[in-house]
């Protein structure tokens, strides 16, 4: 009897999709604004129908006013694939240290991913940092310097103890079905501020464990999907958008060719009749041509000073790959890209230490620590941090109990993510796990709550950001989600 679902399943008066809405579905034009005034009005009307917020918009992708005052304008997700351990990084547990080797004094979850042993203390020491005195482990000496900017969420929990399910849950809100990703929802709700670049970019994403679905738009219009730049198997220096370069023709030759195509298409319009898709396609070639020069320009890091490059660790083989990703992220963000995801997903040793916790986490942390610190500093120096929401975390945390002698199993029941900038309190810890770090205990923040909170920070009401598909209004947060207002400035 979930009456509260009714609001999401509301029916149109005539039981039909609005005509313009359907048109949009068939003629969504990305990445950018195209001369499409009729269509654009359609989008506004469609939005009105579902979100109850009249939108003044002039393109499916053009920037749209949010539901609520936005604390952040853009978002960057530093995703640590594999599941970094919270009890070894941002959530110190003195009792875990004390009782290492003893059994967990309460029940394990009904379902665990692997067999678990006794409690295992962290190999790293925690120290208090900054004015806030928040503790950070020795794994993150550089990020620790920015602790007064971090809002550490220590009570995040999810539902799935396997990588695939957990990645999908974190990125799309569903571990059972293919659903639009968090970034797609944001683009659907907010549009973009740069018409020559994709609105949602994911740098070197992993193709495993959900792959494309983690940045896909599912049933949302195609222009909402993330554009991958390379993938996790490629060095970030080699990452490219697919088909962004012509290997044979010069730009001048291609310009001539596009002129011919445009002339043919204009003739065709006379025969085929005025059709918005046909007109849109004409413009899409022009946009693609512009993108061919815009993308390489964004990706050209040689424009950055040596100081900046060093700040991101690009001069160091350990940090250069992730540093390059972070620097790319900043370049996209400052050009108006709404959502950028950066992924640390090593081809061999991810944040997934079922064994060899010490070496694996040491390696991974030393690859990301300096770049992240440099990135935060750079955003601050450029006055971007105040309205950029930075999110750090993995698909789950790890158990305080040991797997084998020096490993930890997956733990979706309580783990840490952190945010910075974009309207969240700095030097602030929210929520808590139990005394050993197994379960989220105080101010628990489910992945749905995280999503609701992120949307809220960007000015979107997660209950009003809906999309009608197959007879139902869908949300990123399904029928769940509480906004954690306590973390807002």
């Amino acid at each position, binding site marked *: *009897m*979930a009456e*509260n*679902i009714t609001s999401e399943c509301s029916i149109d008066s005539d*039981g*039909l999709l609005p*005509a313009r809405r*359907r048109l949009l*579905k068939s003629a969504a*034009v*990305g990445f*950018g604004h195209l001369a499409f005034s009729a269509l654009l009005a359609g989008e506004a009307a469609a939005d009105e129908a579902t979100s109850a917020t009249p939108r003044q918009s002039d393109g499916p992708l053009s920037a749209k006013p949010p539901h609520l005052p936005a604390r952040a304008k853009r978002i960057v997700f530093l995703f640590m694939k594999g599941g970094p351990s919270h009890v070894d990084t941002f959530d110190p547990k003195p009792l875990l240290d004390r009782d290492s080797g003893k059994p967990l004094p309460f029940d394990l979850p009904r*379902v665990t*991913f692997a067999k678990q042993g006794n409690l295992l203390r962290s190999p790293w020491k925690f120290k208090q940092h900054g004015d806030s005195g928040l503790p950070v482990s020795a794994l993150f*000496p550089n990020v620790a310097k920015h602790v007064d900017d971090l809002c550490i969420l220590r*009570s995040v929990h999810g539902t799935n103890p396997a*990588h*695939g399910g957990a990645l*999908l*849950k974190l990125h799309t809100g*569903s*571990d*059972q079905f*293919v659903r639009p990703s968090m970034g797609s929802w944001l683009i659907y709700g907010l549009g973009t501020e740069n018409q020559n670049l994709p609105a949602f970019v994911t740098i070197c994403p992993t193709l*495993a*464990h959900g*792959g*494309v*679905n983690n940045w*896909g738009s599912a049933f949302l219009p195609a222009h909402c999907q993330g554009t991958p730049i390379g993938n996790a198997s490629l060095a970030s220096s080699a990452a490219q958008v697919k*088909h962004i370069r012509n*290997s044979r023709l010069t730009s001048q*030759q291609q310009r*001539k060719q596009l002129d*011919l195509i445009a002339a*043919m298409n204009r003739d*065709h319009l006379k025969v*085929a009749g005025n059709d918005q898709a046909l007109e849109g396609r004409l413009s*899409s*070639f022009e*946009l*693609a041509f512009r*993108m061919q020069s815009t993308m390489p320009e964004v990706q050209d890091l040689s424009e950055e000073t040596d100081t900046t490059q060093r700040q991101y660790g690009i001069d160091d*083989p*350990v*940090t250069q790959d992730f540093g390059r990703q972070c620097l790319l992220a900043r370049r996209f963000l400052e050009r108006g890209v709404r959502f950028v995801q950066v992924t640390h997903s090593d*081809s061999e*040793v991810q944040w*997934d230490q079922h064994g*060899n916790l010490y*070496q*694996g986490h*040491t390696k991974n942390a030393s690859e990301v620590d300096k770049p992240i610190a440099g990135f935060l500093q750079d955003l601050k120096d450029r006055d971007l941090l105040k309205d950029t929401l930075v999110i750090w975390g993995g698909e789950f945390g790890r158990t305080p109990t040991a797997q084998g002698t020096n490993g930890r199993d997956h733990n979706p029941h309580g783990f840490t993510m952190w945010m910075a900038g974009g309207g969240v309190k700095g030097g602030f810890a929210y929520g808590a796990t139990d005394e050993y770090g197994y379960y989220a*205990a*105080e101010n*628990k923040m489910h992945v749905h709550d995280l999503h609701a909170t992120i949307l809220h920070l960007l000015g979107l009401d997660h209950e009003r950001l809906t999309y009608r598909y*197959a*007879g*139902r209004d869908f949300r990123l947060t399904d029928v*769940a989600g509480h906004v954690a207002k306590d973390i807002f400035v």
Partner: protein
Amino acid sequence: MLTRREQHSLNSLPKQRFRSRCILVMVIAIYPLLDAGNVRAADEPASLEFFEKDVRPLLVKHCYECHSAGDVDGGLNLDSKAGVAKGGDSGAVVVAGAPERSLLVEAVRYQNQDLQMPPKGRMSDADISILEKWVRLGAPDSRKESRSGAIRPTGMSIEDGHEFWSFKPVADPAVPAVEHADWVQTPIDAFVLAKLEERKTGPAERADKRTLLRRVTFDLIGLPPTPEEIAAFLADESSDAFGKVVERLLESPQYGVRWGRHWLDVARYADSNGLDENLAFGNAWRYRDYVVDSFNDDKPFDQFLIEQLAGDLLPGANRETKTATGFLILGAKVLAEPDKEKLFMDTIDEQLDSVGKAFLGMTIGCVRCHDHKFDPLKQTDYYALAAIFKSTRTFGDTQTGVIKHWHEYSFATEDELAELKKIDAELAKKKSTASSFKSKATAKLRDEARAKATEYLMVAASFPSSASLTEVAALAEPLGLHPRILHHCRLHMQYHSDDPVFAKWHELKAAGNAVSEDIEKHYRPLFQNAETAFADAQKKDAKAKTLDDETLKSARAALHDLSGFLAVPPKPEFAFDAETLAEYYRLMEEARLAESNAPDEPSIMGVADGTVLTSLPIHIRGSHRNFGEPVAREFPEVMRNSTVRPVLPRNQSGRLELARWMASTQHPLTARVYVNRIWRWHFGTGIVASTENFGRLGDRPSHPELLDWLARRFMESGWSTKELHRLILSSSVYQMASFHTDEAIAEADPENRLLWKFGLRRLEAEQIRDAILAVSGRLDTEIGGKTLPLRNRQFVFNHTSVDHTKYDSLRRSLYLPVIRNNVYSLFSQFDFPDPTMPTGSRNATVVAPQALLMMNAGLVMDSADHLATLVLSESLDNSQRVNLAYERALGRLPSESESHRSLAFISGATSTALTDAASVDSAAEHSAWSMFCQSLFASNEFIYLR
């Protein structure tokens, strides 16, 4: 009692929170008798005051957000006395007088992992004891009315359902009379024309012959007509010229390639699992070929349906019919889900959802947790069907690590099995060769490092732990140290400042005088002594594992700790030199290729019957941990066409009976849904636009009588798809032009729902690729066979994200691998459907990456080269060559001005591409023609069908 997040909805089954509560529900029924004494005490003023003062504020603070007024999660309303007494979906929450038996108390105590309230965190012990006391007192409650208003009615009753259009029996409507009877070639035309005449308008002109031929050829076989076919059709002036073309195309085996693909959209066909773990479906191709053959053979649709749902149970079941059940097993599954019961119920949900959408146009998946919000489908209907599927086996007995395998039927011979065993052993050997090479190389590095342990410590003292690897390498390399090990060694010192073995190191470093020498003086003898002492100990006792001397013991432990200060990087790329790394990669690649190319065990992906359950309890809110009343196997109530109920066999799942019931001519939905699909694939929009939803939230039919008329004719023809094609294609409606002179109708009906013209359509992804290949003479039209370059159950992607799938085959697109989670870029850009859900209506978006693809993709440019070569090799003049390219690509000749423009472009492009201005070199000429040919492919006319 569930939070919002625990409360399940349609799209994510939450982690389960309840154990079976049937017993508790019964307890409640008798509680007024049992606890009468307490209930009386509950009315006393002191008790009520306690409630007002202590309990009510707690309920308001911790519970009302989710359990009051309009927001009653888990069906539980705690804002009134009646609400508390009524309980939630899981039964009563309070057993008056008995805290130990009350769910409310259990929940707030946080002892049951599946039931913890409030969800944001445990209340204080003091607050919990207040609630315990409250229950013990008999739950005194001073509140009168619920704050909630009337419960909003939702759903549709079965009676109302019988009146809803799609559940009514298929009618036999009369063909309407029309004014312009001359336009009517088939009764279809009369149905359409009648509606147009009502609007005082008429249909578009008949399309010209070239347009019509291009339309029907793409439509039926997914390819453009060849210049020869065009010439033949233009020359044929007989009245049935078009009919002859239709017959030729229906006879072509390429027909099955095109129309089989339509069905594969509905069947969410893929060659890999996708979702969480992407294992290769190495035998899915057999189902794909079964579908193609079924269309080519015009297999009656009722039989096609029955085979796909129950081919394994048919009398005379054989490989073909078992292959058909691939339909049920092809879905994306959460193969690594550790909670098996959840996995099984999620899989059944996927199957019911697919069966419902594909055959019945019903969103059955919506009913997993609650009665349908809009359609007359009840939760009992869902679990009655789920019982049938719970009695079906979808999973096999084997697994890859924690990743479960789906069920397959092997038909390997003894010899083949023996051979496969050998092959598996060889593959295992290749894998272990690679891994043992890695271990040996790592061990060697470890030994080398240990030999220089002192040197590592000496150098490590000379730089800060924040030094970059570049800086560290400059120090390491001259001394023959491994830069990454040294780098790690320094970090290790940082992390282990209180390790007794390294205390001296820190001390000496801090002292700052002759650090290096001092460290050497301390550690070289220490390490040497430790090793010598251990060697001596072993001489005395070969079994000795440790030393007595604590200092030496810990020094030696540090030296030999695999993740200690001399740890070798776990990543081969960081550990090995270039040569070793190359050899390791070579061995790995050899093992991978050997696996990819190894033959599969001949087997079929298909379901079988499992342990038969004759009933299944309702899963409250879809939770497999919270059971309600059992439901016997049955078919959805609103669709039953007889009050006499079928008897399902006790020793079979009942799938066969279900399939036969669905395929009966009395079923209101099956024929309607299918003929609507066929109509959609011919016209671009269905008579019911929402092809997967014939429910209340779906669209209403634009021509309901026509839909029923078609459904009846279809069943009368013996469910023949090809007959249906003939009927539709011979209509004037199909043969209209895509342009209409009446602007008023375009204004009034912009979506062309009334069919006043033939709608302009963008080609689908496969048609685009196949047409490019066909026009340039490269297409390989071979039919059938395994085309996935992976072994069955091999990882398509593992954690490395390396994409090994290639799409360079020149066969028809149907035969390219469909990799879930990473669909071929040309497909995904051009709206290939998500292969995890049934799709009857593809989108046709316009996005910039499509343009990038047409401008820059190798496939397009190579094909343009081929077409250029082809036209240049003909002994024609340039203007005739332009004609040839136009006719191959666009099915027509260029106008004079088009011809002129093309020639001008080619000559301009030739001179730009010239390397030597003095002579026309053939490479420049070819390049110019290739650019021209590519422009044809990129043109709107190429990919939009009139």
